[in-house]
């Protein structure tokens, strides 16, 4: 009997832990509410820890910087923005927990960055809540079904458009007759991007060369590089994680490939460009420059962001996302209902967020992915910084 009681006791310990989860467990208020006035409540659900933290922490810094700047300028119609941070922890279970917790706290809008697997895992909860989302998550079939879901991350069409239009600039305006080789991770999310890329290349008279698929775990790409060389491809496109992009592109460079090599916007950081450091390697970006010395960087530092996180490429788009939220709230009564907020967002057709945080204006009249421009960036070893190539290119889908 005593043994049984002891086991019940140990189970009780678990309940203490459950109690530790509490009604607001794990959530961290990141900006104070306005003194004397109700604030707009923003929930930032991002991968602050775990494998996705290299992308989630910059998004947190971007949101905090934008909210601090907006609040310093008087807020939105006199109401401050109050951001509460929920850590997705880069796993589906914890991301779902963070989302359920955020929904339970009834924010006006949800924003932030989750990895694609976590976006899929949390979509049903978010869709069922009716709370609008405007952030930088990837689009999925589940999120596309949500009328209150908007993103400043590129859709599959926009990912392909950034690459194709960027390559056009490298080849003097046309890809007619060119052969483009592709390497992509063996995940279904890459399938959509490859399908869009194929369609857009064919529309421009180009053709798809060898398509090589590799798992996320890779150590060498030497033999595959030989295959690409044998195909006599004119350009090379890679959809991979940043470490794998470095492995793939370095192997292809070592094999003597001289055509343009382009990484999708999934891996486009300064650290990747500097690590590869090849004159014919470029990455697609939609967010503005937030390196040291820029206004964007200074705003991030002032808001308490980490100097290493602010230059990363998720910082500027999330900064723009919070400004876009503020713009939509500006046209809405206080408090703003989900339907009214979404109606306001859908009317945004040519909004340019401040501090050059995006490379082009935002347009949500065509769909739930509002980016309109991207640009190829390469590495400038002399200046020890990333350098834009040519001009920004359009991501707009023809009507």
């Amino acid at each position, binding site marked *: 009997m*005593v*043994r*049984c009681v*002891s*086991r*019940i*006791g*140990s*189970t009780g*310990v*678990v*309940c203490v*832990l*459950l109690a*530790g*989860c*509490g*009604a*607001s*467990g*794990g959530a*961290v*208020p990141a900006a104070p509410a306005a003194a004397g006035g109700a604030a707009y409540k923003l929930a930032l659900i991002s991968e602050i*820890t775990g494998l996705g*933290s290299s992308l989630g922490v910059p998004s947190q810094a971007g949101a905090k910087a934008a909210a601090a700047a907006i609040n310093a300028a008087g807020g939105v119609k006199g109401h401050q923005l109050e951001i509460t*941070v929920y*850590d997705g*922890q880069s*796993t*589906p*279970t*914890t991301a*779902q*927990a963070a989302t*359920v*917790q955020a*929904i*339970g706290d009834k924010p006006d809008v949800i924003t932030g960055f989750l*990895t*694609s*697997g976590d976006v*899929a*895992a949390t*979509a*049903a*909860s978010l869709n*069922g*809540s009716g709370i609008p989302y405007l952030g930088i998550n*990837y*689009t*999925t*079939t*589940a999120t596309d*079904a949500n009328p209150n879901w908007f993103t400043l991350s590129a859709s599959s069409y926009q990912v392909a458009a950034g690459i194709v239009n960027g390559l056009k600039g490298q080849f003097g305006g046309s890809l007619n007759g060119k052969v483009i080789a592709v390497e992509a991770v063996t*995940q*279904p*999310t890459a*399938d959509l991007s490859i*399908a869009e890329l194929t369609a857009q290349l064919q529309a421009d008279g180009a053709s798809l060369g060898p398509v090589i698929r590799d798992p996320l775990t890779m150590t060498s790409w030497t033999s595959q590089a030989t295959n690409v060389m044998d195909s006599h491809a004119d350009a090379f496109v890679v959809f991979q994680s940043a470490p794998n992009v470095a492995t793939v592109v370095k192997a292809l460079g070592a094999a003597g490939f001289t055509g343009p090599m382009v990484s999708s916007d999934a891996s486009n950081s300064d650290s990747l460009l500097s690590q590869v450091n090849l004159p014919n390697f470029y990455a697609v970006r939609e967010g503005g420059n937030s390196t040291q010395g820029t206004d964007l960087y200074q705003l991030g530092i002032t808001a*308490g962001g980490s100097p290493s996180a602010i230059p990363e490429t998720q910082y500027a788009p999330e900064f723009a996302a919070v400004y876009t939220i503020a713009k939509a709230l500006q046209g809405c009564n206080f408090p703003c209902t989900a339907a009214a907020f979404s109606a306001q967002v859908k009317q945004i057709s040519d909004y340019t967020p401040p501090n050059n945080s995006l490379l082009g204006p935002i347009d949500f009249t065509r769909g739930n992915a509002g980016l309109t421009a991207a640009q190829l960036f390469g590495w400038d070893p002399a200046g020890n910084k990333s350098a834009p190539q040519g001009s920004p290119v359009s991501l707009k889908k023809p009507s």
Partner: protein
Amino acid sequence: MKRLVLQTAAIIAILAGVALVGSSYVLYVLNATLLAILGALALNLLMGTAGVISLGNSAFLAVGAFTSVFCLRAGLVFPLDLVVAVAASAVVGLVIGLPALRLRGLELALATIAGYFIITYFANSYESGAAGAGTGFNLTPFFAGRDLAAAQQSIAWMLICVVAVALIVVGELSSHRLGRAWRLIRDQEMVAQTVGIPVVRYKLLAFAISSALIGMQGSLAAHISGSVDINQFTLAQSIACVAMVVIGGLDSIVGAVVGAAIVTVLPLAVPNLLRGVLSAGALTQDGPAISEIAYAAILIVCLISSPWRVSGLADRFFAFVRARRTGAQGTSQQTYGVINTEVVQR
């Protein structure tokens, strides 16, 4: 049997208590814990009772989830898809379990990891090839349309019933003839063969039952979250499942329950517990990193504090109290004697 019913009743009473008073967030955490308990019970049966190491458990979660998706797309409705998912997981478990006939220890662990890669390859291919599933499959979640707290509470009651049945079934299996045979195979395989226990059949049976239970977890998780994506089934998830069993204590049903709860709840509870220690600024800036370190430290403490893990720790404490109360001489020796007997009995 009486003890098993008492244990199960106590666990269910505690879980039901949480389900009655919890907020939507606590209910979500409870539901995640209940799902994890199913997996931990299955793995405890396989690793703890039968002594067969498996590190590819998230593959069986994928089998359960993807089989449900396949069935629903083919027109089957719940709970028929769940039944098929459980059966399919058991069959796949049998196939993956075949190397267990020849391999042991680390070699077997590596074989189960290879099984994980094979299963996830097929699941990946299915997701890639299915129309409109480029970013995962969407299901209608259980109790869709209800508000969040009500839906989570309904899910909690449903899962509590499932866990109660699982506790009794696994408890019954592991405490009678089959359980004794598994333990003998685990501890003395040659002796087991000598006394006429069909070792191959019993090992495969352990694999099949364990896989079926994990497949059920995967199918239910898919119905609860409303989405299935190959990115959700990672090796890290498999390791977490092993951690539940190791922390709770091998071959202990209550240990599996406690281990599942610790591994599921700790990463979510630690940031909240830190709020009383850190300032708001430090919490925003360093809270997540400190939470990770604290979580890891607590796990290590759980692992090294007792050779019998969490369930054994409680046993030792109460045995110590009992020994003090009876005023016995040589308390510590006697206490350890009690524990050792219990371990052998397991």
